């Protein structure tokens, strides 16, 4: 009887240990991924508005998407002579990956297959950040602030954005018990601030 109890206990513990370990690994990965996603979006917004009058930088300022102009090319990681339009938007459910934030430059995903071979080479040579997709997203909510940190929806007055990112991922073998993490970041349109002081 004691042997039987021991066996049952060992099986139960092994199952629980596997589950706990998987959740821990997935959660740790998610926290790291969430930090990288926040840093990526912050870096993206920091280069908004280069070469563009500050009143014209923000084109669309919705609670789930942001479109702005800049002369910085994220695809090439360099300043260009053309003004580019950058879209940050949540795309609806694409299956196991949940919702996806897409980052487009002039309506082309920055990691669009057309760019890939070029970008792969470029990444190695120039340490270009991959933009394009942010996966495992449950929600993304923008709110916008003016130069005095008051909430505004007037595009020409926007100087910074607060972004709440929610992430969700199914842990291995536990589809009904998704892991959730969230992060709030505040991104400043530094070039607009510089123009204010010019």
């Amino acid at each position, binding site marked *: 009887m*004691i042997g039987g*109890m*021991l066996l049952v*206990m060992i099986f139960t*513990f092994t199952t*629980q*240990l596997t589950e*706990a370990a998987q959740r*821990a690994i997935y*959660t*740790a990965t998610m*926290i790291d991924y*969430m*930090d990288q996603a*926040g840093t990526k979006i*912050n870096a993206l917004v920091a280069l908004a508005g280069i070469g563009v009058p500050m009143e014209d930088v923000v084109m669309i300022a919705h609670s789930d998407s942001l479109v702005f102009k800049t002369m910085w090319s994220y695809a090439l990681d360099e300043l260009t002579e053309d003004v580019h339009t950058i879209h940050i938007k949540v795309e609806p459910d694409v299956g196991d990956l949940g919702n996806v934030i897409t980052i487009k430059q002039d309506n082309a995903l920055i990691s669009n297959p057309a760019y890939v071979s070029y970008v792969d080479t470029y990444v190695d040579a120039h340490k270009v950040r991959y933009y394009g997709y942010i996966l495992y997203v449950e929600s993304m909510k923008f709110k916008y602030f003016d*130069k005095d*940190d008051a909430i505004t929806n007037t595009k020409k007055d926007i*100087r*910074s954005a607060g972004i*709440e990112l*929610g992430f969700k991922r199914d842990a291995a073998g536990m589809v009904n018990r998704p892991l959730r*993490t*969230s*992060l*709030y*970041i*505040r991104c*400043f349109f*530094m070039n607009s*601030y*510089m123009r*204010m*002081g010019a």
Partner: protein
Amino acid sequence: MNMMEMLLALLAVVLFSTISLTYNQSIWRQTDYLFNAQLVVQSNHLCHEVLDEVDAKLFSKQLDFDNIVSTYDKKTRSSTIASQGETYNLAITAAVCDSTGIALAIGELSLFRRVDVSVSGPPALKHPVSMYRLYTRTYM
């Protein structure tokens, strides 16, 4: 059941209980670490928010370099993040400092200012997260 068997059964119960308690304690500790890690990441971004704000307002000349200390020293803020259900307390200090960030006595002239941000609040955050940035006067 003789005495030896009863003793063995008792030892088995003690062994199982010990394993069970140890296991549960490890799981709780692991969960604590993960909660803490998530809060550290958030706290880190809140520190950046304040330090970036100083940068932005210096760029726009809304904030004069000489007023960094008077504007930011010994200030507190509170940031509630609804999606996490957590409230973070930010303690900000600012000082005149030398090029290595060491604070100077009041009244000493320097081209450098230091702003420190310390974030605490959520019970699961084991230690406050602190960050500082040096600001340099770039025009004379």
